[in-house]
């Protein structure tokens, strides 16, 4: 047996001695009361307190229960009429109602949640034990005729009027304290969760009736017989309810622990998606329980792969408790449950379901990835449509308009020629020539947007340098590998850098930017940094998201770090971007005209 268990056994023996001894004193003093009920009520507090100390270490309810039991029997021991002990017994014994109120409002962890509850409980202690303390400090029993063996003698100040006042408070304090207590119960019920109400309603009903009985006891004239005797017995019965309900709560937690065993068995059987939640809900006895699964980027997803958020309500009827399930210091999932569910049971269920949770998490991640792939595919199709519309619009508004006017100019020139105005013809042809040059420039720019020739012919370094040269801010390009990569990788890098530089020009308010490209056996890494205003959000705006989709399509990953006021870094990692062993190139002559068949080209210059 552990030292703690020995201590508990000692407390149990002491409690039994205190309870039975008190009843023995009452019986021998000729006190007319139901000693069985009285002993049963007091002992029930001791039993509940000892069980609570054993099962819920650190929970304040255990010590409060023991204090209630000890206080309960003080009145019995007072009948010994020991001069020294009379006053402390009277004071401590008068605090029973305050201890019970403290237990009822602090159930199930002993903590008082609101200021009003703390004021109510404090007022109860002051109105009972405090008033009695004032009484014994000011009342002189010898005034009332006590000659020897008086229960106490005033040690500070003997004042009959003060003693009368304290006695009045002790006798009539219930008029104020009971309504305060009932209001506190009602307020607590209002802000409790459904599960808490399920557990607490029996206790609060008993405590509410008990408070009513206290009130009636204060109104009805004191008498050892008749109605007050009946009330006293009824009060004892009700007071048993308080520790009984607490014990029932502990027992139900023990029963729930056995549900963990059933959960382990149930988890062996195959089950459809989402069934794990139902099994855990049954084991916890909380139908409202929910499970969300951790993903690598720090977020959470539902079992079906859809995004999830952890609740933020920590109080009130909608309050939810989050218990994170971890394995080897890695987050697997989070159980979102009613705060009233026993934390030990939650931990036991989480441990039992660990493997199943891990499997379910992997399934959820796959579903989330599938959803993302579907969404990405849809966005890529949409981006393709948008791009075609843009090209059509650019053609229509640009080169096509210029060619139309060129056609009109040619028509005018022909007429001028026929009419014999050679000077006018020359002017018209000059204007037409300018228009034609602009049309060619616009077509070249459009073609470069579709696919840059320099990238195909010269590779990443020159292509990125050409982007840097045309950027709106000074851009430095460094560490670009000289060898070639697969065309899809090169074009992905090119368009990421192109979009990033375009965004810098439009939004960043930067004075310079830089492009870094590094490559090792594992990945090709591209970073575009600027010193602008930051605050870019990749979730907003189709440009960055379209790039992210493009990067994801080649198994890459794009991140945007953009703290407000500290510039933006767009980083793309393209894993396994092996250098191209052979790249098909169109061979061109000195004017850029394709000639002959495309030869195979090998990095390093060996054809």
């Amino acid at each position, binding site marked *: 047996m552990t030292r703690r268990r020995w201590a508990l056994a000692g407390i149990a023996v002491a409690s039994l001695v205190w309870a039975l001894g008190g009843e023995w004193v009452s019986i021998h003093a000729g006190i007319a009361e139901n000693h069985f009920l009285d002993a049963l009520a007091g002992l029930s507090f001791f039993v509940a307190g000892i069980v609570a100390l054993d099962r819920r270490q650190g929970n304040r309810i255990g010590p409060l229960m023991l204090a209630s039991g000890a206080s309960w029997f003080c009145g019995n021991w007072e009948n010994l009429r020991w001069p020294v002990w009379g006053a402390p017994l009277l004071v401590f014994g008068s605090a029973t109602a305050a201890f019970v109120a403290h237990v009822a409002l602090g159930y199930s962890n002993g903590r008082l949640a609101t200021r009003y509850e703390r004021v109510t409980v404090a007022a109860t202690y002051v109105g009972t034990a405090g008033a009695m303390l004032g009484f014994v400090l000011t009342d002189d029993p010898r005034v009332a005729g006590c000659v020897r063996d008086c229960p106490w003698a005033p040690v500070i100040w003997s004042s009959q009027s003060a003693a009368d006042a304290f006695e009045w408070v002790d006798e009539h304090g219930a008029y104020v304290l009971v309504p305060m207590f009932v209001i506190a119960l009602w307020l607590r019920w209002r802000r409790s969760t459904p599960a808490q109400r399920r557990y607490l309603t029996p206790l609060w009903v008993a405590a509410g009736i008990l408070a009513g009985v206290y009130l009636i006891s204060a109104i009805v004239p004191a008498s050892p017989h008749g109605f007050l005797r009946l009330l006293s017995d009824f009060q004892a019965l009700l007071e048993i309810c308080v520790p009984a309900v607490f014990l029932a709560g502990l027992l139900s937690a023990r029963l729930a622990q056995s549900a963990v065993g059933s959960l382990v068995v149930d988890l062996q059987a195959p089950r459809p998606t989402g069934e794990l939640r139902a099994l855990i809900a049954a084991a916890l006895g909380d139908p409202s329980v929910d499970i969300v699964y951790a993903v690598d980027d720090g977020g959470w997803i539902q079992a079906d792969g859809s995004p999830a958020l952890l609740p933020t309500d920590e109080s009130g009827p909608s309050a939810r408790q989050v218990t994170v399930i971890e394995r080897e210091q890695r987050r697997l999932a989070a159980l979102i449950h009613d705060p009233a569910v026993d934390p030990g049971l939650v931990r036991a269920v989480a441990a039992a379901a660990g493997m199943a949770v891990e499997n379910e998490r992997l399934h959820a991640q796959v579903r989330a990835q599938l959803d993302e792939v579907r969404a990405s595919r849809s966005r890529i199709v949409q981006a393709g449509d948008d791009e075609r519309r843009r090209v059509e619009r650019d053609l*229509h508004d640009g080169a*096509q*308009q*210029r*060619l*139309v*006017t060129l*056609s*009109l*100019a040619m*028509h*005018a020139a022909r*007429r001028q020629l026929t009419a014999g105005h050679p000077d006018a013809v020359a002017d018209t042809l000059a204007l037409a020539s300018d*228009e034609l040059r602009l049309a060619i420039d616009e077509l070249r720019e459009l073609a470069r947007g579709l696919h840059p020739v320099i990238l195909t012919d010269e590779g990443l370094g020159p292509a990125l340098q050409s982007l840097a040269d045309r950027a709106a801010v000074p851009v430095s390009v460094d560490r670009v590998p000289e060898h070639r990569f697969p065309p899809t990788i090169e074009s992905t890098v090119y368009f990421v850098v192109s979009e990033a530089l375009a965004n810098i020009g439009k939004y960043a308010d930067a004075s310079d930017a830089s492009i870094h490209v590094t490559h090792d056996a594992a990945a090709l890494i591209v970073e575009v940094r600027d010193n602008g205003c930051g605050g870019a959000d990749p979730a907003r705006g189709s440009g960055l998201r379209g790039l992210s989709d493009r990067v994801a399509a080649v198994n890459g990953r794009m991140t945007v770090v953009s703290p407000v006021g500290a510039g933006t870094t767009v980083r793309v990692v393209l894993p396994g971007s092996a250098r191209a062993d052979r790249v098909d190139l169109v061979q061109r002559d000195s004017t850029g005209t394709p000639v002959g068949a495309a030869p195979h080209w090998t990095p390093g210059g060996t054809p």
Partner: protein
Amino acid sequence: MRSLLIVDDHAGFRMWAREVLRHEGFDVVGEATDGLSAIDAVHDLHPEVVLLDIQLPDMSGFEVAERIAAQTSVVLTSSRSAADYGPAVVRSPAVGFMAKSDLTGAAMAALLDPAQS
């Protein structure tokens, strides 16, 4: 000579259309660069013919045609072909459509007065 208003947001087209039509039987009384100013110009200048681009910056040429067709003859034009606009051209109250690349004074006259052509 028929009075004519050119409505197009492209300055180059307006300049050359004016140059061509001015020498081929039309009196170009004004130019407008968008739908609203075209409507105002029709009210102010009372042109007999309006050469109206379909794609204007503020509103569609079809919408402008609906609002001015009772006061003048409208010829729709575009750098696209009529087929690109489907039945909208037929439903329009305009007297016809002329691709910008086909624009000449004779073609305009033929469209406005098919019997003479």
